């Protein structure tokens, strides 16, 4: 027909558009929302593909953003597995029926301590201990002492030298608030946070972020998980690590299966692999120094060992409770965050 000939250019255009949009189709994959550091997230895909032949598609966002995203899509999830990030949001997600518990194949090999702390809510992936990252040179230049305790942070000598993450987006920051509440009681903890609020240079969006400014000597103290600090120290940044004297809290990094996952079988395969020794060693290769949950995983040097620190008895069930969590974050957002720092 003439119409085909005359409009040949248009048909070519349409065909071009169609072929380009076929790239939007998809097969045999697992969709992972990933809340550990970018390096680790990026290393997962190739390793899992090599082990099983299943493609991994990863979006990496901070822990609370991940929870928000999963909550928004609860009716119709895009993701199958939630990998990493602090445990409290994982617990909250389980409570709100956003995720479901899946007994991974290696469950019997996982650390009994970590399992006991969280019960059958999510799968423990690693343990990370909260601490202070210190840049000794910066503190020395200021003539400020090295902080040893949480209460030391209120020292006016640290004005503008502290970075800590924002609990609105970061699970690390919430772990820290929960830790302080458990050590000091709620009101006392909020007074403490207000007292060092003026020393905070910036509340970062991601819990890992303070180490950047710390390593570059822009600040003197960064409050975050020690294993991320170890990684940076090994890269050659001039930083030291301190555990606060009143005791410190810890996270149990979580691994959860999303309820209603579209690729459930692939998701389960991914979870089985993620807590196997082979899967957990991927973290080491990506420069991660958190304590893996599988007791059979051979450890490498530099991992902060819980036995060396004064750990509080972190009540994961109480502080993973969504109501308490939201109340504490809301209280921080209203009472601490907006206070001027000048």
């Amino acid at each position: 027909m003439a119409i085909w000939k005359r409009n040949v250019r248009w048909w070519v255009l349409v065909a071009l558009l169609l072929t380009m949009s076929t790239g939007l189709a998809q097969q045999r994959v697992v969709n992972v929302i990933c809340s550990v550091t970018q390096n680790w997230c990026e290393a997962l895909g190739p390793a899992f593909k090599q082990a099983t032949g299943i493609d991994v598609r990863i979006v990496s966002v901070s822990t609370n953003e991940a929870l928000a995203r999963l909550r928004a899509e609860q009716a119709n999830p895009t993701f199958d597995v939630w990998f990493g990030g602090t445990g409290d949001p994982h617990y909250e997600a389980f409570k709100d029926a956003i995720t479901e518990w899946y007994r991974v194949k290696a469950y019997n090999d996982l650390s009994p301590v970590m399992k006991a702390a969280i019960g059958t809510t999510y799968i423990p992936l690693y343990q990370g201990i909260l601490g202070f990252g210190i840049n000794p040179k910066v503190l020395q230049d200021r003539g400020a002492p090295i902080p040893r305790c949480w209460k030391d942070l209120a020292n006016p000598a640290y004005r503008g030298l502290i970075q800590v993450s924002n609990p609105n987006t970061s699970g690390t920051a919430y772990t820290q608030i929960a830790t302080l509440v458990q050590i000091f009681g709620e009101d006392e903890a909020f007074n403490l946070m207000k007292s060092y609020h003026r020393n905070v240079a910036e509340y970062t969006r991601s819990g890992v972020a303070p180490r950047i400014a710390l390593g570059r000597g822009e600040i003197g103290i960064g409050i975050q998980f020690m294993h991320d600090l170890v990684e940076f120290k090994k890269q050659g940044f001039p930083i030291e690590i301190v555990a606060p004297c009143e005791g410190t809290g810890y996270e149990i990094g979580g691994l959860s299966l999303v309820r209603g996952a579209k690729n459930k079988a692939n998701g389960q395969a991914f979870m089985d692999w993620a807590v196997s020794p082979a899967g957990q060693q991927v973290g080491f290769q990506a420069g991660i120094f958190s304590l893996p949950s599988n007791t059979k995983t051979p450890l490498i040097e530099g991992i902060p060992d819980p036995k060396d620190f004064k750990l509080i008895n972190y009540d994961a069930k109480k502080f993973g409770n969504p109501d308490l969590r939201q109340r504490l974050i809301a209280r921080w957002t209203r009472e601490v965050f907006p206070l001027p720092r000048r």
Partner: protein
Amino acid sequence: MAVIGRTSLKGIASGRSPAWMAGLVALISLLVLPWGRTDRNLLEFDSRLLVLNQAPWLGGLLLAVVVVLTLSSLLHLPLVQRGYALAGLGGAGFLAGVGWLVATSVPFGVGAFIALTALLVMVGIGLSESGIIQNDPFVTSSILLTSLFVLLFIVYPLFTVLRESVLVKGVFTLNKIQSVLTSPLFISIENPYTDHSEQLLVNLTTLALGLLGAGLAARGGFRWPRVLTGLGVGLLLGWIVGAGIFGGGAFPTSLYLALIVAPITTALGLVFALLEQRSRAAWVRRSLAVVSLLPLITPPFVFAFALTYWLGRSGIITSDLLGLKTSFLFGINGVAIAQVFAFTPVAFLILRGSVQGLNASLEEASATLRAHPWHTFRDITWPLLRPGLAAAFLLTIIESLADFGNPMLLGGDRNFLATEVFLALTGRYDPNEAAVYGVVLLCLVLTIFGLQRLWLGNTSFVTVTGKPGAGNFSPLPVWLERTLQTILALWGLAVVLLYFSIFYGSFVQIWGINNSFTFKHYVDLTNLGLPVLLKTAQLAFISAIIATLVGFLIAYLVSRQQFWGRGLLEVGSMLSFATPGTVMGVAYILAFNTGPWLLTGTGIIIVLALVFRNMPAAVRGVISGLSQIDKSLEEASTLLRAPSSTTLRRVLIPLLIPQLLAGMVFAFVRGMTAISQIIFLISPGNTLATVLMLRWIEQGDLGRGAAMATVMILGLLTVILILFAVSRRLGRGTSLEAAV
């Protein structure tokens, strides 16, 4: 036009109708393509999803309608009566289909999309052939289709934002608005650490500027309306400045920031525009040509990123040269500096138009009459420049309010409206709060657009393409020329240093700590960033083609056709231009997350977001192109009895190819560098380069971020240079103004 030919035949004419083609398409898609889907996969196919299996009565009804209409279109029947049938039955079928989707909340499938579109085309043809609408079938169908797209992808999402701000969990309430507006994140004035009262200081500033405003207004003769306006404007500005300096919170901070950035940027833009027109120095022209390219090839927040190298807490200037350990960059200062760098080229491109519109002969006349150059400037040049300055000023305010990347990186402890929209949704997961922030931002921006219309009337502020008058501009006085050149040189030096630092940062291990040379970041980029870059290019390319086609169609309709609702279509299509990116992003995620229009989590929603974001630029580009083409060409084509679709294809498109090409390239480039509107919409497999770059920079992989920025800048530069080469061969210049 076509109307003349048809009215004479009206009533007696009979024949086939082109509606059969649309009918055939509808028929096929009803029979073989899925009507709904169970998930996000639009290419999902399952016989249970066919309309006859999913909703038998609806399928039967639609099939009957389509078959009847298709057959009748193939027969020689009276046009008018069949037109009524096409419009009536087709319309009923369309409404039934849409109604079913809305009522059952089943996500639409490909079949539903194609069948409903085809039905709408049939309605359009019917409306035209019956004479209800006095345009030809092609035009009528296009009007219906473009209106549908504008309604669904611009108006409906914005409406959703408005709805979410007052509808919490299905209950109408104003509590959310109240609680957000009174929250200290939004406005906080008092500082409990200080002895004095901040509120008092703010009040004093407000009063002082109010009186100053009234005084200035009264200077040229005391008239109440003028004085009251002056007082009002002064009070308003005074409050913003006071609350911005002494207080905090997203609302005053964003406004104060815009008030700092807009005058500086406009002034710099004017300096560049004057230099371009009147400077004799060759280096000035050459460097200004580069300046005009910058906004196109620079991904957002790249200046912010580079600034931390120079002025950050351990920056080269602040720490190494001055020995300061200051956080001065993080907060309003840093964001303001980054925005001045980012928006000055934009202001320059706008002001260039109005400076070129100046009439040299007027200035010559003034000089001949022995006016002092200063008088010439005050009485001739300045009044002619004022509209352009106002336009640049207001547009910069809007850009500054809507900016997302710079506050994200450099905002420090201050909150900004555009980032608060993002944090409310992704951090606190409070869609209602995000919606309230979105509404506030939208109201501000629309108010400013309104102001602009009020001051400047209907003149398009983007391309003021007056014909350059005869006569030669007198060169600037030497001292002025020197000063302006110095400003340009300093600005250029700063930009070169910023770009260089990105380039340098991508080749060293760890900037400032370990400066040894490495390709490591490029290796990482190839492994991790390349798939994302390619994906971004793919999505941006698809969206650029669609944006150009839809934009072209809308531009043609609003500038060459007369129909009811023309103004509405134009305003509707421009709305997405006025809407800040984060607000549009929130709107899309709220509107397309569930129900019949489920699209989140797919690449398609990113394409759509980019299409409707970049389309207004294409519309304006084509409108200005069309205004240079005489209507008589189309009339000749129409008189030779070509339908308007043929006229478009054979006459207008060939003439407009340079504009279309440029529009497409600009849409592509803007798609590659977009961030605020798509940061909410990324999904597995559909991560975009800018989002990945932001993530890398935030996590401390600065080298990798710098490598990504370098690759993007060089890539986009190549694309733009190719465009210039091609349009030079086509024999016409490409105006950059359309890209702004």
